[in-house]
């Protein structure tokens, strides 16, 4: 057992990012895709905070940036779920492969 250093946190972030990418790529449920996006943003946050911890700056730049990421993720989730609800009201489905009205 070894003490967790910077690479450990980066690996956790990388694995979470990969799972989030898998979710975004393979899901057809629009809400499921959104969950993948949240996972990706959280993985980025882990990296920011880990770099801030192991390279401390007096301004806590990494933590401040991760707070901005959290704010933008909340805004993104609100707008995206509103769009999903609007699609559900018009198309009666949230399957991302079915919402192809513009193609016809």
């Amino acid at each position, binding site marked *: 057992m070894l003490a967790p*250093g910077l690479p450990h946190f980066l690996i956790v972030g990388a694995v979470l990012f990969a799972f989030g990418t898998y979710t975004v790529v393979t899901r057809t449920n629009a809400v499921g895709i959104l969950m993948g996006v949240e996972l990706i943003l959280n993985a980025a946050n882990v990296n920011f905070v880990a770099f801030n911890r*192991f390279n401390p700056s007096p301004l806590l730049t990494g933590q401040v940036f991760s707070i901005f990421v959290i704010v933008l993720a909340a805004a993104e989730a609100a707008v995206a779920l509103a769009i999903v609800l609007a699609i559900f009201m018009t198309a009666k489905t949230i399957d991302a492969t079915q919402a192809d009205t513009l193609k016809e």
Partner: protein
Amino acid sequence: MVVVAFVFWIFVKEVLPGLAPVATQGAELARPSDLLFYVIAAVSIVSGAGVAFSRSIIYAALSLLGALLGIGALFIFLSADYVAVSQLLIYIGGVLVLILFAVMLTSKIGDKSHTNPSIGVLPGIGLTVALIAVLGYVATKTPWISNPNAPNPAQTARTIGDVFLKEYLLPFEVSSLVLLATLIGAVVVARKEIKE
């Protein structure tokens, strides 16, 4: 489950050998806090796999809860208490509840097997494995400037508040504008149109 096991096997095979130099550098006896890190990391990663591979969208949302909790615990582990509390309040209290609302409003909960279908599973797994391998390689092989004994910041909340009102005042105000635009935009997009 087979898929999860396969990804973990790849992880063990590809990434853990890269950790061996780190192990020889920083080998020391296990401390409870180190064990705690591995437990928290395992909870986050397994929950993340649940989000990615779960058949039911409700289970995926609950796995997302576990992943967000685990990541918040990682933030506490990195002595970023303010970010951890923000994570709890905004993600788990806000975003996750919003996602659960959307799930309840849109999908038919009755047929559990069809709530969260997947397409292109094999290319997706290939992409995941490639991402984990490349990012794990970069994370372990790069000579990061890293100081494990760096002093913990004493007053995170106070420093972050100072910094928000001094150095990062413009992004702070812009993000408040973004939130206002989000509020209005979400209402406009999700409302029902009243036709005359």
